[in-house]
């Protein structure tokens, strides 16, 4: 699969688009973890997830891309926004969003980034995959989910049900334990 990988220069069109989307995703992710306004963090998270969905589209995984928009952007971040509003977040800047160990955190994150990037660059420098559309359409994905991966799928549905029940039990105040 990596017989004759073309050189890194010049980048192809999809690569340029992917890199731009990657920069957007990384930039908005940085803003998520550094912004001083809670609601803005959620909005930057939306931008980040949207850029990642675009990246999936470039990587020909279109079903995953739309599911990403549908579930992450449409449900998960809305839930997070609900959480922000229900915990009475102040509008505007709040000073105490970062804990005292942010320099240690930055150090750890930089170390992680350095290790991961050097490892993956040395590991996959020559890996090349030509993109041909149609790999991630609904049909092949659906048939492999419901044939090969049907057992994990069923296990996940049970997990989701358990999470649903658990969330309801946790958030309702009128459910008492057994007397």
């Amino acid at each position, binding site marked *: 699969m990596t017989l004759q990988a073309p050189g890194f220069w010049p980048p192809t069109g999809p690569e340029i688009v992917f890199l731009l989307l990657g920069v957007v995703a990384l930039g908005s992710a940085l803003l998520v973890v550094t912004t001083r306004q809670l*609601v*803005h963090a959620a*909005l930057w998270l*939306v931008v980040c997830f949207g850029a990642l969905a675009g990246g999936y589209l470039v990587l020909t995984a*279109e*079903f995953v891309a*739309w*599911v990403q*928009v*549908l579930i992450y*952007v*449409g*449900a998960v971040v*809305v839930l997070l*926004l*609900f959480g922000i*509003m229900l915990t009475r977040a102040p*509008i*505007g800047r709040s000073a105490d969003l970062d804990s005292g160990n942010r320099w240690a955190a930055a150090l750890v994150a930089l170390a992680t980034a350095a290790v991961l990037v050097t490892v993956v660059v040395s590991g996959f420098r020559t890996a090349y995959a030509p993109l041909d559309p*149609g790999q991630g*359409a*609904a*049909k092949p994905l659906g048939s492999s989910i419901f044939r090969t991966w049907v057992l994990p799928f069923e296990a996940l549905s049970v997990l989701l049900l358990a999470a649903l029940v658990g969330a309801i039990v946790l958030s309702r105040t009128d459910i008492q334990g057994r007397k």
Partner: protein
Amino acid sequence: MNNPGPTLSDFGHDPLWISIIKAVAIFVFLMLGVLFGVWTERKLISRMQHRYGPNRAGKFGLLQSVADGLKMGLKEDLMPRTVDKVIYFLAPVVIAVPAFLAFSVIPFGPMVWMFGHKTPLQLTDLPVAVLLVLATASIGVYGIVLAGWGSRSPYAILGGLRSSAQVVSYEIAMGLSFVAVFLKAGTLSTSEIVAKQAGGGTWDIFGMHIPTPSWYVFSLIPSFLIYAVTMLGETNRVPFDLPEGEGELVGGFHTEYSSSLKFAMFMLAEYVNVFTVSAMAITLFLGGWRAPWPISLWDGANTGWWPMLWFFAKLALAFAFFVWVRASLPRVRYDQLMAFGWKVLIPLNLGWILLAATLQALRLPESNRNGILAFGAVVVIAGLGIWLRFDTVNQRRREARAAEVEEEFEQLREEPAAGGFPVPPLDLPHYHGVVPSARAPKEEVTSGSN
């Protein structure tokens, strides 16, 4: 008559300028549709309520919406002092743009000749086009949440929270009601779903071949009914227009958006969303651009530009349905709304999907029918068993509670202060201190006399 229309392979060959023409045409169509949709709604609802409706601006008041739009454009654009300015400004844009985007995958007609090019009457299509519509709808929620949050007003934030909870929950039911269509059509692409509704099968019973109707509204009627309810919830229309419940929340999430162009954007988004969900109903259940039955007997009905006419007629009828519902039904209470969505629509939908999938599996030629039927019977019996088990428990609990209350009541009747409270005798008439006949006759207060 059996012109199945474009499939996925017909897309992506248009020159750029044809795509631009189509995009502009859709935009213009939606803008004009909103202008005249508002007029139609006001006119129709006034006739249903025995009044005239707008009749001053232009013939039949046709220009009323134009005048309103101009007025909104000329009004002072207020920016409340304490709002989160970026979010306050962004919210109307976020709500309006996805509403327009969803229309790019709606098929308006079959292949036509447009300036020497053969092209489908649809901007674009994807193998997962219906997901795109759902995704744009879920992005539209942000407009509501952000408008509510950015306004810094209790009414707005309550309205925004309510509305987004409502839209998110009804979106689940809506997505589930599409599942049966996907099962039946075997594709998520809008143009192919329309193509699959071209010809119905036949129903072989006792050696007779009865042609079945091809539109999914007939074969998947439960899905369609659920979708019809969820599309009211999804677009925040009556009877689910709680976010704008004037009696309790002033204007809901757009309370702080006075009648400027920003408010016009919310209005625009609401109507475009109505058009989008109607167009989805038409595409998925009502045969898309295909001519309805008596007309479809004519050979040319599904060729050329004619189908656009059928599509618009169906869209107008769907819009009239919205108006009809608005004129007929009162607003539901918020807990009723959520209970209906989660406890009625979603379970019903899941049950129906199971049934539809079973029927679909039975129809496959290579299927093991006895196995499927046996499995289905086991599932049904198990479900019934679980229901009976929990229902008897509920019944017993309810009876115990009733007996307890009755006992307490008996005790209280004998001894009013038995519960520890000084209570009046329970059979005392309720005067509340004022004998009705002794009240002074009230003077009539006419409205406007203040």
